[in-house]
């Protein structure tokens, strides 16, 4: 979601300390029948008017998935998921393009408003004809948004402006229709269908997501942002994002997400693939605040996501920054495959767990090219009865002469019923490579809390301040507006964790 002043105010207005995005929007929906089988896969593909090659690709994934076992190695536990008891396709019913905001489904607008999306962008998102294609009249740096509502991308903003630079930013369904050659070449090229259980499921049933192509030598003039929301009941959300940065290009991409508050758990299994060619840079930032479940551990999103970037070109760079505060269970390892010589991979992460949340997250850095460099900074914060695991792999191949990795994992505990775990795997098969690992675990000290309180901060403000300090190195990697939002989110997600 675009983190602008309005969003921040919305976040600030939270009083009861609950999950503020826990509203449900009553919008006319169109569902596929419940359950998962080959017919559903065909149904989705047909609904999206896909070419035969993509249907075949999905069916192959589905066949693979049926033979796979759900992984159980992560430090998370949850009741067995019944994959037949969910909807795999839900879309807001499309009406002819509204002429003005008055004609837009007011429920949809309310949703946007609750999310703090400014009116102007609301109009664009809702597809109001002729609404703002000129970023000039908004005072701040524009953010182009692709909004994915349940299974379907509802709108993408600023496309005209981006097209002037030859940039393609649209939903992946549209890309399949309009740029099939690009999709066909890159889809599954970083995360193949059979990569893992959840990615495989996604490959079979993904319904939408964002597609970005930045042409050679182009520096994307604005932040690109995707906003994901699960709204319909019992739907899984399986979005698929593909970003290609051609030689010498540069793009910064933001991802935000929310879901309504529900008693039952909902599954979210996304796949994100990034490709960076020679001298290209992709900066991918996520602020994840899916519904984490209530204070007793009821409900919440299962967030089983595969994110991977390939630094194919020399001197290319992929940087993942994530602030993970939501979801009941998070299983996520944004990774970099450093193929190109002198390519760079970065992973900056803040993962907060409170109450009964469980997070098993980290990164994998595969050093293949010469002089490849990677940096991992992970900050885990656990409160309540939550469990927080950093799991990382640094793998250096024999050919990666002069490769370097620096890893720093810090854990902060609030209270004494939570857990923090650090599981770093290092496989170095190159003598000229250098791998450094540092890890610390600490608690918020009583004297720090008292010092803040003696200066007038209440306990929650004090915790917020100390936690933000602890995360400073990661938060500074976020685009400015996102960083402010992330700070507020950290404070909110830790509410009630002390005292």
């Amino acid at each position, binding site marked *: 979601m675009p983190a602008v002043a309005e969003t921040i105010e919305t976040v600030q207005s939270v009083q009861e300390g609950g999950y503020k995005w826990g509203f449900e929007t009553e919008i006319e929906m169109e569902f596929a029948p419940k359950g998962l089988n080959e017919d559903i896969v065909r149904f989705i593909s047909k609904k999206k008017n896909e070419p035969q090659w993509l249907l075949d690709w999905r069916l192959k994934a589905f066949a693979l998935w049926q033979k796979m076992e759900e992984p159980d190695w992560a430090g998370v536990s949850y009741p067995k998921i019944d994959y037949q008891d969910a909807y795999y396709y839900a879309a807001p019913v499309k009406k002819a393009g509204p002429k003005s905001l008055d004609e837009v489904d007011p429920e949809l607008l309310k949703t946007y408003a609750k999310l703090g999306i400014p009116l102007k962008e609301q109009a664009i998102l809702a597809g109001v004809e002729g609404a703002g294609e000129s970023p000039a009249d908004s005072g701040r740096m524009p953010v182009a948004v692709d909004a994915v509502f349940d299974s379907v991308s509802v709108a993408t903003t600023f496309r005209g402006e981006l097209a002037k630079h030859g940039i393609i930013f649209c939903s992946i369904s549209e890309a399949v229709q309009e740029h099939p050659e690009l999709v066909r070449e890159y889809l599954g090229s970083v995360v193949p269908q059979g990569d893992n259980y959840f990615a495989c499921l996604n490959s079979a049933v993904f319904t939408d997501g964002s597609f970005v192509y930045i042409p050679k030598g182009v520096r994307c003039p604005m932040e690109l942002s995707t906003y994901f929301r699960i709204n319909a009941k019992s739907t899984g959300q399986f979005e698929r994002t593909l970003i290609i940065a051609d030689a010498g290009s540069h793009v910064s991409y933001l991802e935000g997400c929310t879901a309504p508050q529900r008693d039952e758990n909902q599954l979210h299994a996304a796949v994100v693939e990034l490709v960076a060619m020679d001298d290209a840079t992709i900066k991918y930032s996520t602020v994840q605040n899916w519904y984490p479940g209530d204070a007793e551990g009821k409900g919440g999103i299962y967030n089983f996501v595969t994110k991977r970037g390939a630094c194919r070109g020399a001197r290319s760079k992929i940087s993942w920054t994530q602030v993970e505060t939501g979801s009941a269970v998070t299983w996520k390892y944004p990774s970099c495959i450093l193929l190109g010589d002198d390519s760079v991979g970065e992973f900056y992460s803040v993962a907060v767990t409170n109450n009964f949340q469980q997070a098993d997250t980290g990164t994998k850095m595969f050093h293949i090219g010469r002089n490849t460099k990677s940096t991992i900074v992970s900050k885990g914060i656990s409160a309540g009865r939550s469990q927080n695991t950093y799991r990382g792999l640094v793998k250096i191949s024999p050919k990666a002469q002069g490769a370097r990795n620096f890893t720093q994992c810090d854990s902060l505990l609030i209270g004494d019923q939570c857990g923090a775990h650090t599981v770093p795997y290092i496989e170095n098969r190159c003598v000229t490579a250098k791998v450094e690992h540092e890890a610390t675990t600490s608690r918020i000290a009583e004297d720090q809390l008292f010092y803040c*309180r*003696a200066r*007038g901060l*209440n306990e929650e403000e004090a915790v917020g*301040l*100390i936690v933000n300090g602890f995360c*400073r190195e990661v938060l500074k990697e976020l685009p400015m507006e996102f960083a402010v939002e992330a700070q507020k989110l950290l404070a909110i997600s830790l509410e009630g964790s002390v005292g």
Partner: protein
Amino acid sequence: MLRIEGLTAEIEGKQILKGIDLEVPKGEIHAIMGPNGSGKSTLSYVLSGREGYDITGGSVTWNGQDLLAMEPEERAAAGLFLAFQYPVELPGVGNANFLRTALNAQRRARGEKEVDAMAFLKLAREKLKQLQMSDEMLKRNVNVGFSGGEKKRNEVLQMALMNPSMAILDETDSGLDIDALRIVSEGVNALRGPDFSALVITHYQRLLNYIVPDRVHVLMGGRIVRSGGKELAEELEAQGYGQASAA
């Protein structure tokens, strides 16, 4: 007016304060002296509301309010300030951000308008200048990597910004060089007035040449064993605490 009556307190089952009686009238500055481990810091923590102390008896009223019933942050908002003997480090938290957050938290609690970043910076620069401190101080993380003296000066900077009506200075003079001692003292004296009172905890009579106290109290073994005028400090300096308790 701060009135402490029969205050007893323990920590981890060990009685530290054994019946403190003390009054600090509005507008006065009182000094507390006493040997190591006698309970001076304990008293300052109990007054500012630190958790972990069992208050087993007595009362503390401040301008008629029951001080002990208030949360630490409520005491701060009401104008109580503690300059810590050992200021605490807050890694990653910028000093300017910390000071502004604290100031605004207090202002909010009092129903006053918050100060924006620009106005705060102006105010902070003014105080820094007064205390002959560099602006660099604002950019650093709270007390992280500060020298002993810098930490103490940072406490005084905070006091100047918060503009309290009651300050407790716990050995703020320890670790200050001679010039800093004078500057810090001037900082305290600048606050002096009919609405400002202070409890100055110190081991050294020298400080009291700069901040001249209205009264001096000797705290030993958890009790005030003697009180007197500023000349008492000189006597203690000359004779030590053995004599003081005997008298």
